[in-house]
């Protein structure tokens, strides 16, 4: 009997659509992607993203190569990632922290080549995939 109920539950979840919530998430995702792209475009100088290392004082130009489609959510803050290519050909990650204000999304923090805080948030279970 229990097996039958579990099976029915499984079948129900298998064939049921994701509905209005999925559509809403899609909307959010596209807006976030657009916001990220806008931020990236505006931050670029000569097609590169300049980055100042505050510990060494070194200014490095990174070139965007690939945006990641995965979006993380941390209460009201969304996190999106991309891969940048350094002058030495080394790939580094960049994490964008985005939030919403007045119906618009905007980048509030950018972490280039510093994945540590995001990993800590993910390990703590605070940053989870938007789904």
């Amino acid at each position, binding site marked *: 009997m229990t097996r039958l109920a579990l099976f029915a539950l499984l079948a129900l979840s298998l064939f049921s659509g994701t509905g209005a919530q999925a559509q809403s998430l899609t*909307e959010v995702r596209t807006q976030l992607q657009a916001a990220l792209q806008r931020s990236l475009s505006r931050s670029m100088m000569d097609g590169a993203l300049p980055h100042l290392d505050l510990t060494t004082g070194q200014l490095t130009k990174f070139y965007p190569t690939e945006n990641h489609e995965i979006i993380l959510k941390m209460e009201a803050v969304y996190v999106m990632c991309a891969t940048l290519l350094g002058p030495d050909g080394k790939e580094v990650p960049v994490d964008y922290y985005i939030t919403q204000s007045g119906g618009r999304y905007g980048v509030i923090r950018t972490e280039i080549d510093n994945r540590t805080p995001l990993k800590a948030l993910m390990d703590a279970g605070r940053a989870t995939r938007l789904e």
Partner: protein
Amino acid sequence: MAMTDGAALRTPTLGLYLKLTAVMVPTFLLFAASGLLWLSEKNLLRSEEAMAMRIGNATSRLGGALERFSDQGDGAVDWASPYVTDLMQTLLGDPAIRCVELVDPANRAVLAVVPEGLGCQGADTAVSLPYEVFSWPITELVTRFDEREIATVKRYQRDFLLLLLAGGILIAALANWLSFRVIVGRPLRRLITRLEEAREVAVIANDAKSDFLAKMSHEIRTPMNGIIGMADMLSETDLTPEQDSYVSTMVRSGDALLTIINDILDFSKIEAGKLTLASEPYRLREIVEDVTQLLAPLAARKGLMLYSDVAPDLPEIMLGDAGRLRQILVNIAGNAVKFTLEGHVALRASAGGPGQIVIRVHDSGVGIPSDQQDKVFTAFEQVDNTATRSFGGTGLGLAVSRQLVTLMGGTLTLHSREGEGTRFDITLPLIPQESGGRGLRATPLAQPGLDAPVIWLLDPCADRRAGIAAPLTHLGARVIAGGSVADMPAAAKPALILRDDRVADGDLTEGATPQILLSDRAVAPSDAIRSVLRKPLRHALLIEAARAALNGHLTARPSEPAPARRAEDWAEGLHILGVNDNATNRLLLERYFARSGAQLRLAASGAEAVALYGAAPADLVLMDVSMPGMDGYQATGLIRTQEAAQDLPPAHVVAVTANVLEQHRQEAHLAGMDGFLGKPLRKADLIAYIARLRESGDLMPRPAAHRPAAE
């Protein structure tokens, strides 16, 4: 070895497999579907995210291009410019995007739209992505897209999932079946085959053991017949006291050995499941009292008080296996007498729970330590080695008794405390014979219309007093019981006094009240003591003596019963043919019948017996069953044929055999035999058997015409 047929050995693999599948397939389905669903959801999520990224990026890049286009002019942008629509057209390359609008945020007027001509017609349900374009003036780019590709992905994944599941189940079921046949089925079948073979071997070995025991029992009983019979005969001759002591020891040892053989044989029969119980009417009171009488001499030698009583409300006649019940009681009560050094042993039967009787055997012996009570009912176990050394025995008696009680549908339990005695409770189903009625059946002691007669019962043993008083009270007497004369109320004048011989008579002998003395030994009656009853009491005798005394018919009665018959001439006038292949046993028969008044002829084989009978018929044939050549069954068959051919009255043929199983009785009956006597054949048993036959009229001397010519 006999093989079991193939069908019985075939492993029910399909049944086992189906049961296993009934559990395994849903479990597999649950786990596989859960895993596939999880994968599908993740894949769908990636598709949604990829689409969002694609549309978001494209929209943002178009917005940036429009902003740069706006920056190139000095004033307001001409949004109707084909450059603008060309830029917007680039988004339509994405299959998800239905249309793109450029809107004035102030009044929501559409400044430009692609695809041109169609616009966003029919895209009402599409998802909108608004993007603020920082142009001059500020405009809003709205990209409308639908999720058809997501729906397609969903549909594809669902089909893929179902296909995968169905294929997985099919493949798993087939793989399971094959692996089950190979991995489980074959070893299981081999294991079952081996178990069946081992079982067959064990059954054959057990049968062989039972046969061996039965044969051994038979072989032992045959010489035992000679030993015990000759010892019996020897005891009847003139012996010195020393010789008499030796002979008595021989007889007792023979009896003990016979008990051991019987126990072993019973145990073997029960283990082999060959023991069947009879269902015949019996009187429980008689059985209990018989057992008490049987054990009385041993109890008297040890100075033990032995008594019994059966509650008067129990049915007088019940159904069951009287012989086996007697065996159980002799075992348990015999042990009680054997292991009790002083005090008493009592057998008391009463009603138990609904439809049950309980027979309690209680003694005041040393008791059994609690940690050894479990061993009591284990075969070949006694409580300790000391007991074995002191009292002998195989330790089988109680094991056999418990198994017999269980076969009867009852229970045998033990209650004991060290130093305080032991009590065995035999609980049996109460099966009254329908015609027997309920309760003790005897004429009431009270005369119609008169007061209940007062009976003083003087016995120092309170437990026994209760047992004696119960049937008298049941029959209407008013019994006043006490341990001494001083306990009796002076006001209640007795009509009868029952006095145990350990109670001082005081001035009772001076009164005119009749007295019945209850004594362990022979006591001559006197004027005061008009009757003496030997303990342990038989209630029937007690009631009759009490009735006679109350009715004034009491006459002086000796305490010893008169000899029933003369020791000689107990088979007077009978023509007997004794058949036995053992010379000692033939000699024994000759001695048994020496002064019986019978004419005895002896045959050493079945063939000789047939020849002797053909020459002259006999009234009684004592036929040994197991003989070389023609056995007793065949010889009996031929004797019966002769009788039919010559129109002779049939002789009473008794099987004399050590084979005492029920099947042997049936075989003897089928062979035409009339009776059954077990070995060793005791003279007393023979005398009693012939007496019973003569009393019932089943055994009469033949008419002169049919007598042997030698007479």
